[in-house]
């Protein structure tokens, strides 16, 4: 059934259909309407879950860690400084291998204070050991939430579903909401591989020593480094699962099909714009306009940022003359984080396109379509001159 609702409601609807069991959240703009909606669902018995109001984001994640450890499907959501306040617990959730799902309505990070959209919050959290998925519209938000639970519970790694604050969280557009029975068939109840069970007492996440050590039975128990290496290799292996789950989702709901990168008019393109989130859709209009003028250009939206699908990115980009990476975040003092990742993925390619970096829309600075047009035109024209420095779009300096 199609409904016209906000992106936050699209997320909440997905969470409800996923039959989540524990929700713990603290309000922060622009995420708040999502968890408000969930509390309504719980209050009206449309969703049978524990809703635990907490006094901070740090506690929200701590509650999810606890509830997930008992084997309950757990969810939270946040934005910007709230996400960063969770930081220590986020590392914990990943290392403890808890399949928590969290929505992040992307917002710039203070100081200076801003409530508007960019990607600095989640991009700065790329090294947590969480999976990070990015959405371009409301349907993707809704679908990605469903896929995220399945993915998290398959690979025992927490998943962040990221979508642009305001631009997606607060805009309204139509999206399809599947039947509960369809979702139940796709997403079976959570069966944890390990959980707190009074019948079989265990200590979880006890201190590890620099080296491996014998356990109670004299067997070798892994040390910190072994456990961390496994997290990394499982994240890499999760790429295969992402693809598989995307396929299963497609069979069940008839949507999806581009698990890692979503290309638009790229087949014969000389140049490709590359970015994450709703910007990749906005760029489609620019691509259409430039195509009409004769420029062979396309755009690719990246849907999975961690684990970084470097092979898919390389395959998608290597055949073009130039790649223009637009991002709403920066690794301050260096360059765009995504830009660096793209370049590193291309390093082993036989032919390498030029790669440029454009920083856009920080703190909600409106991204005008003609700004994008100008940036792309400039990038193509001044290929050699632009170099490695990030270029700033819409800056009033």
């Amino acid at each position: 059934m199609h409904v016209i609702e906000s992106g936050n409601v699209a997320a909440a609807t997905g969470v409800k259909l996923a039959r989540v069991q524990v929700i713990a959240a603290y309000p922060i703009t622009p995420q708040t309407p999502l968890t408000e909606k969930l509390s309504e669902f719980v209050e009206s018995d449309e969703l049978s879950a524990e809703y635990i109001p907490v006094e901070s984001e740090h506690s929200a994640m701590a509650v999810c860690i606890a509830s997930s450890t008992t084997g309950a499907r757990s969810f939270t959501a946040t934005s910007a400084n709230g996400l960063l306040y969770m930081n220590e617990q986020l590392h914990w959730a990943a290392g403890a291998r808890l399949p928590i799902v969290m929505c992040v309505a992307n917002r710039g990070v203070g100081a200076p204070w801003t409530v508007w959209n960019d990607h600095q919050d989640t991009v700065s959290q790329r090294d947590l050991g969480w999976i990070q998925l990015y959405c371009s519209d409301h349907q993707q938000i809704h679908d990605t939430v469903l896929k995220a639970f399945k993915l998290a519970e398959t690979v025992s790694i927490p998943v962040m579903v990221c979508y642009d604050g305001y631009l997606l969280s607060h805009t309204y557009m139509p999206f399809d909401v599947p039947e509960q029975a369809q979702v139940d068939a796709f997403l079976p109840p959570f069966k944890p591989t390990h959980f707190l069970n009074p019948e079989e007492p265990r200590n979880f996440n006890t201190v590890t020593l620099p080296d491996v050590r014998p356990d109670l039975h004299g067997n070798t128990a892994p040390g910190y480094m072994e456990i961390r290496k496994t997290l990394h290799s499982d994240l890499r292996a999760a790429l295969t699962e992402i693809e598989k789950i995307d396929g299963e989702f497609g069979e069940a709901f008839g949507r999806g099909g581009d698990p890692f990168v979503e290309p638009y008019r790229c087949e014969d393109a000389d140049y490709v714009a590359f970015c994450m989130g709703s910007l990749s859709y906005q760029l489609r209009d620019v691509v259409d306009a430039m195509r009409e003028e004769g420029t062979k250009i396309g755009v690719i939206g990246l849907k999975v940022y961690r684990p970084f699908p470097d092979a898919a990115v390389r395959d998608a980009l290597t055949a073009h003359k130039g790649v223009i990476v637009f991002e709403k975040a920066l690794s301050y003092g260096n360059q765009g984080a995504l830009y660096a990742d793209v370049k590193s993925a291309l390093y082993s390619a036989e032919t390498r396109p030029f790669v440029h970096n454009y920083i856009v829309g920080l703190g909600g600075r409106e991204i005008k379509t003609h700004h994008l047009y100008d940036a792309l035109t400039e990038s193509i024209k001044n290929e050699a001159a632009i170099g490695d420095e990030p270029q700033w779009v819409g800056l009033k300096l």
Partner: protein
Amino acid sequence: MRQDIIEIRWHGRGGQGAITAAKIVANAAFKSGYNGVVMAPTFGTERRGAPVYTSLKIAREKIYDLSPIATPDMVVVLDHTLLEEVDVTHGLKEGGQIILNTPKSIDSYDFGAHRLSVADVTAYALEAGLAPGIVNTGVIGAFAKATGLVSRELLREAIRHEFSAMKPEENARAAALTYDRTVIGGA
């Protein structure tokens, strides 16, 4: 860039229900075959009573650009007192439409080349049995009549759906009364 998108800007005051009004029209438009529907409220803080606006874009094909409307084809004004505070015609295209809730007659306004339609939505809503100041359902009756973008029937359906728990009949009647009494001016 795209020429096929109809852009409608809704001017109201915080709490007046401009978002709901736009959402109802969005639903009705979607049902009548506009697959591209995007509604974007003012991003950021909203204060009850302060002027706010909501962007609604509709097109036959999916819409990808979520940025606010700069050059609307139509503006809907939920409250004529807003005219003193906001330039509702800002960016309005040549020959663009203005739909205005006002108790005054159409002759008391001059919007140059723009086409004005007026209705005393506040009065008709009261007459329909709504509480004083509930104008958002009435004003979309005026919108439907003036623009012809959505039919009276689809609108009725969309209103009853949106207000299923809150005076659906009265809200639908407010829209119907306004629809029938909207005065449409020339350019």
